[in-house]
C-alpha cells in the first residue's frame, strides 16, 4: 500500500477535534506535571541537602526508587495498582463545568512524581555550584536561611540549571505519550483510536510525530531565546557557567 498523501495532508492540516483535544491535553499535562515536579523536586533537593540524616536518607531513597524503575510501570502502579489495592482511587473532578478525569489526574501525578526525582538532582547540582562565598556573604549580612535561599542562592542556581531544565521539559512533552496506557486521550491514544478505524498507520503516525516535533521545536526556540537573553544580560553571568567563578577583572 502506497503512502496516501491526500490523507496525510488532511490529517496534518485539518486534524479532527479529537486530535486537537489530545494536543491540548498533551501540552496541559506536560506543563502541569513539569511545574508540580519542579516544586516537588526542589523540596526533595532541600531534603537531600538537609542536615538531618533522616531527611537525606528519605530523599535519597525516593530518588533511587523513582530513577531505578520505568516510568510506564510507575504510571500503571499509581493509577491501576493503587486502585486495585483499594489504597487510592482517582475520581473525576468537575470544576466550573470542566471535568478532570481521574486518569488525567493520575497521569499528571505520575509524571510529576517521576520528574521530581530528576529535578531534585538538577536543583542540587545548581545549588551546589553556587560559590560558597555567596552563602557566607549572605549569612554575614544577617540573612536567615530562607531569605538567603530565595534572594541570593536560587537566582544564581536557576541561571546555571536553565539548560538542563529545558531538556527536562522536552523529555516531559514526549513522556506524556506513556499516559495513554491508562486511557488518557492525549495525542497518541487519539491517533491509535483513529488508526483502529482506518488502518492508515503510516500516515497517522507520521502526523503524530510531526506534531511532537513541532512542539519540541517550539520549545527549543523558546529556550534558545531565553539563553541568548541571559547570556547578553549585563550581569555577565552565562547559563551553564559557574556563577561562583572569580569574576574577571576589568580595568575601570
Amino acid at each position, binding site marked *: 500500500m502506497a503512502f496516501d498523501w491526500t490523507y496525510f495532508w488532511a490529517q496534518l492540516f485539518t486534524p479532527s477535534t479529537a486530535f486537537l483535544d489530545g494536543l491540548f491535553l498533551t501540552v496541559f499535562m506536560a506543563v502541569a506535571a513539569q511545574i508540580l515536579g519542579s516544586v516537588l523536586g526542589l523540596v526533595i533537593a532541600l531534603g537531600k541537602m538537609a542536615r538531618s540524616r533522616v531527611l537525606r536518607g528519605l530523599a535519597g531513597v525516593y530518588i533511587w526508587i523513582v530513577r531505578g524503575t520505568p516510568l510506564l510501570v510507575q504510571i500503571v502502579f499509581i493509577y491501576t495498582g493503587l486502585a486495585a489495592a483499594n489504597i487510592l482511587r482517582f475520581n473525576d473532578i468537575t470544576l466550573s463545568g470542566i471535568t478532570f478525569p481521574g486518569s488525567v489526574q493520575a497521569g499528571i501525578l505520575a509524571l510529576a512524581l517521576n520528574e521530581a526525582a530528576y529535578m531534585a538532582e538538577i536543583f542540587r547540582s545548581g545549588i551546589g555550584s553556587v560559590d560558597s562565598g555567596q552563602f557566607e556573604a549572605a*549569612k554575614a549580612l*544577617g*540573612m536567615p536561611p530562607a*531569605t538567603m535561599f530565595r534572594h*541570593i542562592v536560587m537566582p*544564581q542556581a536557576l541561571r546555571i540549571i536553565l539548560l538542563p531544565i529545558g531538556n527536562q521539559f522536552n523529555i516531559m512533552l514526549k513522556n506524556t505519550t506513556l499516559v495513554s496506557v491508562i486511557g488518557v486521550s492525549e495525542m497518541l491514544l487519539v491517533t491509535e483510536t483513529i488508526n483502529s478505524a482506518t488502518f492508515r498507520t503510516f500516515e497517522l503516525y507520521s502526523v503524530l510525530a510531526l506534531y511532537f516535533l513541532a512542539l519540541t521545536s517550539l520549545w527549543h526556540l523558546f529556550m534558545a531565546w531565553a539563553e541568548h537573553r541571559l547570556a547578553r544580560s549585563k550581569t555577565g553571568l552565562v547559563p551553564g557557567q559557574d556563577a561562583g567563578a572569580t569574576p*574577571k577583572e576589568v580595568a575601570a
Partner: protein
Amino acid sequence: MKPPRISDERLIELTGVAKWFGPNKVLDDVDFHVRRGEVVVLIGPSGSGKTTLLRCINHLETVQAGQVRVRDELIGYRMRGSKLVADRERNIAVQRREVGMVFQRFNLFPHLTVLENITIAPTLLRGVPKARAEEDARALLARVGLPDKALSYPVHLSGGQQQRVAIARALAMQPAAMLFDEPTSALDPEMVGEVLGVMRDLAASGMTMVIVTHEMGFARQVADRVVVMAQGRVIEEGAPEQVFSAPRDPKTRALLAAVLH
C-alpha cells in the same frame, strides 16, 4: 595610652575559645577583646588561626569551647540552665546584623547591581523603605569613591572597586563593628591603596574594626592595638609601635623579619 575615641566598653569579647578542624587545634584557649571604637589588627603566619578567630566573631565558624560575646550577648549559643546549646539559625542571623564583614574575595552578589548589592540587606532585613535605602546606598558609594557605579554589575568592576562596594554593602546595615578578612590579599598591587584608603577613613570615623591583614605598614598606621597569633594562640599584643619596633616574642620577631624584608 588609648586614644580618647575608644570607650572602655568591650564590644567584642572572646574568652577561652577553642576550635579543632579534625585533629588540628586551630584555636587554643584564646582570649580576645575589642573595645568600642578600637581598631585591632590581627597578624600572624598563615595557619595561625587569625582568620578562624575573626570568623568566630560572627559565627561563620562554630567554637568547641569558650564563649563569644558581642555587646555582651552570647553569639551562636544560648544558655539552657547552666549548659550552652546551639542557637537557632534565625536568631544567629539577627545577631550577625550587628557585625559587618568584608571578605578576601569580595563575594558581591553577581546577579544584582552595585546599588542592589548594598540595599538588599537593609530593605529585606531592617525594613528600610527602598527609596531611603537607595539614598543611603548612594551616599555610601560616594564615601567609598564610587558615586557613578550604582547601576553597574559586579563583573564590570575592578577588584579594588568590588572590594569598596563590599565595604559599602556591609556598612549599609549600620553595624556596630566591622570585620576584615585579608581584604587586600586578592587584589592586584595597584588596587591595594584604594581599599586601604577607604578603611583608613572608616577607622578615622570611629568605627570599631578587626582587621586580619599582611599589610604591616597599614597596620602600623591604623591599628590602636596589634594582636599577634601563632599556632592558634595569642602570643603577643600591644600598641603597634611596641609590637613592630620591640617585639617581645621570638615568633613575632621571626614573622616580622619574614614579612618586612
